Structures are given as structure tokens and as C-alpha cells.
């Protein structure tokens, strides 16, 4: 093979390789990812009917835990589960109908207000929307 032909082939081949290694990421980038949208303002906390009355579910809201409660009379409530005392995770207590923090015995009512114990501030309440079989939680405007 003549030197010139070799150089041209070499050039063409490496050009193709480079183009492929640059185009491959771009093409993969353009293909829609699994999670269709950026972490939207609304999070799907649970499906309708998933929670029995007087029970709760802990879910991820942004980067913190949150509590979705289905009260004894069937109302949905959602709160930040980060205790306002020393940031332990609160849970729902069915028999008292209150939110309880086991770390220092902090207790919150179903409006998020502090009933007893050391927490200095109420729990942040979130907005709930039921749409298409999903229970969506978002921050209050």
C-alpha cells in the first residue's frame, strides 16, 4: 500500500472512530430517560387506596423524609417527617391519632402542631392533590 493511501485510510478510520465516540454520548443523551421529568414540585407519594384508614407511609420528598397519613375518618394529610427538635424521623401512631417522635417523646397533632415534648415548632404541612389514581404531595404555596 502506498504511504499516501495508508495515511488517508488511517485518517478516515480514526475520524470515524472519533466521531462515533463523540456522537454516542449525544445520542444517548437525547433519548428520554426513565424518569421523564426533573424532580417536579409534585411527588407521587402513594397510589389511591394504598393506605388503609388510620395508617401512614413514609416517603421521600426532595431530600428529606415525609409522612403521608390516611386518618381514621379517611382524610389525607402530609407533613415533613423531620422532627423540629433534633431532626429525628417522626412516625404516625394509630392508637393516639398523633405523630410521635421517639427520640425525646415529642408529639404532634394532625395539624402538625406540638402537643407535648420538646419540639419548638410545628411540623411543616404539605399540600395534597389526588389525580388519576395518584396521591400527589407538594409544598404549600
Amino acid at each position, binding site marked *: 500500500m502506498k504511504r499516501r493511501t495508508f495515511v488517508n485510510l488511517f*485518517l478516515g478510520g480514526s475520524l470515524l*472512530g472519533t466521531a462515533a465516540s463523540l456522537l454516542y454520548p449525544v445520542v444517548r443523551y437525547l433519548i428520554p430517560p426513565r424518569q421523564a421529568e426533573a424532580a417536579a414540585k409534585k411527588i407521587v407519594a402513594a397510589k389511591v387506596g394504598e393506605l388503609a384508614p388510620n395508617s401512614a407511609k413514609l416517603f421521600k420528598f426532595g431530600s428529606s423524609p415525609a409522612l403521608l397519613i390516611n386518618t381514621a375518618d379517611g382524610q389525607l394529610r402530609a407533613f415533613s417527617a423531620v422532627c423540629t427538635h433534633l431532626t*429525628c424521623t417522626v412516625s404516625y401512631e394509630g392508637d393516639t391519632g398523633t405523630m410521635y417522635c421517639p427520640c*425525646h417523646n415529642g408529639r404532634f397533632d394532625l395539624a402538625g402542631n406540638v402537643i407535648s415534648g420538646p419540639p419548638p415548632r410545628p411540623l411543616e404541612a404539605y399540600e395534597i392533590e389526588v389525580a388519576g389514581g395518584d396521591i400527589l404531595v407538594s409544598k404549600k404555596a
Partner: protein
Amino acid sequence: MKENREGSKKRTQSRLFSVFTLSLLLTLPFSLLGQKNSCLECHRELDEQSLRAPVDGFATDVHRQFGLGCQDCHGGNPLQDDVELAKDKSFRGAPGKAKVPEFCGSCHSNSEYMRRFNPNVRVDQLQTYWTSKHGELLRKGDTNVAVCTDCHGVHGIQASNFPKSSTFAWNIPETCGRCHSNQEVMKTYGIPVNQVSDYKQSVHATALFDKKDLSAPVCNDCHGNHGAAPPQVASIAFVCRQCHPSAGDLFTQSPHKAVFDELGISECEACHGNHKILAPTDEMLAGGSNDVCSQCHDAGTKPHETGVEMKRKLSDYVSAFQSAEDVLASAEKQGVEVSEPRFKLQEASTALILVRNLTHGLALADMEAKLAEGDKVISEVKTLGGAALKEARFRKTGLVIATVFIFLLALALYFKIRELQSKEKS
């Protein structure tokens, strides 16, 4: 006609004027009454500091804010400039130390009087005081003990919910410490003087002073304010349970409760101390460097061995937790985003807190069950972490491949350029 009306108008005006002037002159002395306070005026000018101090202090006193004056406690007539006339029959002067509680109590125990100012205020302070160690000793004639003024001050008294008050939460250790950290005062009673310095090293003090957490206990939360007395052995546990009920419940259900009660050992204090309560660590468990179990249980005995087993399970869990953390940290250092697995790991951290609390119940089975839950979370996190590390490797591999092609292309270009340049020359 017009003249009459003019004249009557003028007469009405002059009448009104006289009434006005007369009333002013008549009421003038009464208006001065409200302002006159001969006690303050006189004491302000005195040379002796101890007689002058009340004037300065009183300016910010809580009693003054409620409209009370010197005469309301000390009697006397503040309208009289002459000192003999001012110190009239009603003058009570300053009470001696032994009489102070009753002096203050004359108002503060009178519910009818106090509810004028604050219907909600307690009126049992004096009664409670007599049940305290301070009150007991005062009754026996010891005037070295604390009375109302020692803690609350004398003329610059602030409400206890005011941050500058000597009885506000974060000032209380200092207030109590004035006597209780003073070797000279305490040696008569044989009481140690390390309580305040011990307390200041405690986790409660850190919460109160550093985190400004006003729910953290200070001296009066465990010892009482007016009824201050060291809690009895039986009541220490109740005192701690005020804020730590879950640990307390677990302890009550454990075999320790019956034994401790029988032996008369104070529950929480035996392992955690009273004033110098430090943040508990796994080293307090059997076999650890700070082994509290060995206070009663010899090494090698069944109870001690169970404790050792608990510690072992806990440290295994902690290592597993740490290794999951390390995987995530390593992936993050290599540039991969790991906020999702991090959030999941929080659940494992919560499990750890709960298991450590379960040690009070001494039920190994319960601890193992909770640890198993946590282990599941940790393994999930490890899987996600492994995926993140794989992603990091993938990126590097991809970079190598792309770089190889680019270098080959660069080399090819170089050859091409050489070839073209040699062609140009010719």
C-alpha cells in the same frame, strides 16, 4: 340686643377660665403625688454603695413594671422628704435573711393579691420552699442557705422567662453554682462542689448552651425550683423518664428493674451518671472500653456474655453501615451523583438509633430483629452504591476509548499535515 349677647358671651368665657384655673391649682398637688418617691430621691444621693444600689436595680425590676414601689414591700411613706416622717409606722425595713421567705411570701403566697397582677401565677412557692433542703435548714436556724433573694436577686428582679434573669434556663447553673461550686460554703455540709462543672461537660449542657435548646434540663428540672432537694433513688428514674420515656419503658420491662428496685440502685444514674451525663457510646456496653455492665456483672458470666453478644452485633452493623457509606463516598468522589442512595441510608441510620435504645430492654432477640431490617436497607444501598461505582468505571473506560480514537486521529492528522507540507515544498 346684640350688646347683651356679646356681653353674655364674654361672661361665659371668663367663668370657664376661672373654673379651669381653679381645677388646675387644686389638682396640681395630686399630680405630683404620682411622681414623688422620696425613697429613691434620698437613696440616690447616699454615699454608701449598698444603700445606693437598690435605686439602680429597681429601674428594671419586674415589680416596678407592675406599678409597685418601695413602700409596697418595705412600707413607709414615699411622699415625705423628712427621713423620720418617711419611715413611719408602716415601715418594715429590710428583713433579716431568716425572714426573707415569709417577707416575699406575704404577697407571693396570697392568691387573692397575686391574681390582681397575673391570674395564672403560682402561689405555692413558699409552701414548696419549706419542703426543700434550703427551707429545712433555714427553719433549723442556718442562715447560710439560699433564700428567695439569693437566686432571684433583690431589687433588679426579672421574670424567669426573661433571658437576662438569674433564673432563666441558661443562667440557672451559674446561679446555683454561686454556692454549690463554692468549697468554702459547701464544706460545712459535706456536699461536693463538682456538680456545675460536671454538668457543663454533659450532653444536656451542650444542648442548652450550644444549640440553645431550652427544652434541655438544668438544675431545677431534676431537683425542683423552690422545693429543691436531691431526687430520691426511686424518683431519679421518673425524673429522667420525663423526656426519655422509651428508654424508661424498655428498662421497666427488662429484668434489671426488679433487681435495681430490690437493691435500691437508682436506675438511669447507675450507668449514665447524674450531672456529667455524656453522650452514650457503644463502648458502654459489655466488653467495651467504658463497660458499665461490669459494675455488677463479672466477665464470663451469662449476663455479661449476652451483653458482649449485643455489642458485637452492634459493631458488626456499624461496620456494615460504614462500608456502605464508604462506597457512596467513593462514588461521589469520582463524580457520580448519589443523593438517592444517601437518602435510603438514612433509614439504616434510624434503625441504628432505635437498636441502641433497645439495649435498655436487654432483649437480644428484639435487637436482632431490628438490625435485620437495617441490614436489608444497607444491602439495598450497597447495590445502588455498586451501580454508582460501576458508572464511575464506565465513565473512565469511555474516556479512554474516546481519547484513544482522538489520539489516533491527531496522529493521522499529523501525518497528513507532513504529507501536505512535503507536497507543498516540492
